[in-house]
């Protein structure tokens, strides 16, 4: 197993992972999308709404605002000591009290916990005109992407196979070079060479067009993994996902111990 970074930023990582089974890579992808917890607004209490939008539409729009939070500080509501009723250990209130004329942005919310706040302050929620008023308490809690997409910690999370392209006995007819939609094949001297193998989408156009059957595109155990995160660093998302998988295996072994005895 080898890991090699192609791009390494706080909000986006692209890396090559070598010699691992697809099952592992796909499980990591699924764990990132569906099992890594984040904070998002679950429901809102509307005390006053004279804006043009219905309460439900406001609730939906506010729910989709990504929130930055220290998620280790909070419990899942169903596992909290309060029994799911809601307490400072499992939920945060964000208050909004504004009057028009004004465009309401995500940055206008006043949070009970200063560490829990919208990732971006410039997300428009609703435009208020003269005399319109909003008084809202938005209640945020931890959740996972399996429940609703607003709790996903990432926007893009995908992997693709890095194929192996083998060219032998080529007659240099150039048909494959023209057929490749991503232009990764090139003639260099008496040979056809692959420019950027990471761009290959395995469309097999070059194989179809080759009359000598000289090109072979094969799957390998190497993958190009892309993660673009929203509310926490991309590397942290990846680490959390792997830890979730690991804990599941540990937990299952713990239960199986009791079954055997």
């Amino acid at each position, binding site marked *: 197993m080898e890991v090699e970074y192609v791009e390494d930023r706080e909000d986006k990582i692209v890396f090559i992972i070598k010699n*691992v089974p697809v099952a592992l890579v796909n499980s990591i992808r699924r764990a990132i999308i*569906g099992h890594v917890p984040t904070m998002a607004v679950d429901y809102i209490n509307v005390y006053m709404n004279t804006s043009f939008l219905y309460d439900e539409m406001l609730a939906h729009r506010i729910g989709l605002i990504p929130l930055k939070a220290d998620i280790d500080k909070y419990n899942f509501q169903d596992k909290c000591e309060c029994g799911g009723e809601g307490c400072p250990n499992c939920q945060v209130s964000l208050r909004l009290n504004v009057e028009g004329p004004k465009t309401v942005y995500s940055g206008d919310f006043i949070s009970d916990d200063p560490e829990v706040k919208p990732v971006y302050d410039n997300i428009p929620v609703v435009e208020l005109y003269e005399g319109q008023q909003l008084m809202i308490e938005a209640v945020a809690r931890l959740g996972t992407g399996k429940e609703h997409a607003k709790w996903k910690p990432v926007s893009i999370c995908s992997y693709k196979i890095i194929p192996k392209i083998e060219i032998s006995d080529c007659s240099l007819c150039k048909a494959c070079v023209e057929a490749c939609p991503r232009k990764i094949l090139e003639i260099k001297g008496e040979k056809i060479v692959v420019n950027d193998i990471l761009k290959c989408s395995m469309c097999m156009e070059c194989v179809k067009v080759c009359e000598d059957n000289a090109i072979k595109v094969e799957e390998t155990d190497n993958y190009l993994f892309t993660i673009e995160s929203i509310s926490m660093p991309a590397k942290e998302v990846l680490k959390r996902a792997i830890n979730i998988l*690991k804990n599941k295996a540990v937990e*299952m072994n713990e239960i199986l111990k009791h079954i055997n005895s």
Partner: protein
Amino acid sequence: MDVKVVEIGNDYVKLIVKGEDHTFLNLLQHYLLEEEGVIIAKYNIPHPLVGEPELYVKTDGTDPIEAIKRANEKIVKVCDELLSKI
């Protein structure tokens, strides 16, 4: 996670793994099939929303529960290796 034994014998076991989905079970199935002595390892999710996944393992005579334990230990090892390389 909640594991219930439906059927058990010397060389086979049928478990219900409540609260899990493809995320973990597909990984477990892959490592079970790599395990020596395991002939069949298969899981089935009757319904994606309400179903409780069934895991079936058949071996050539070795303890199937022990095979699952070894597969899980392999997952932990792989995850630790990956964590150290990130």
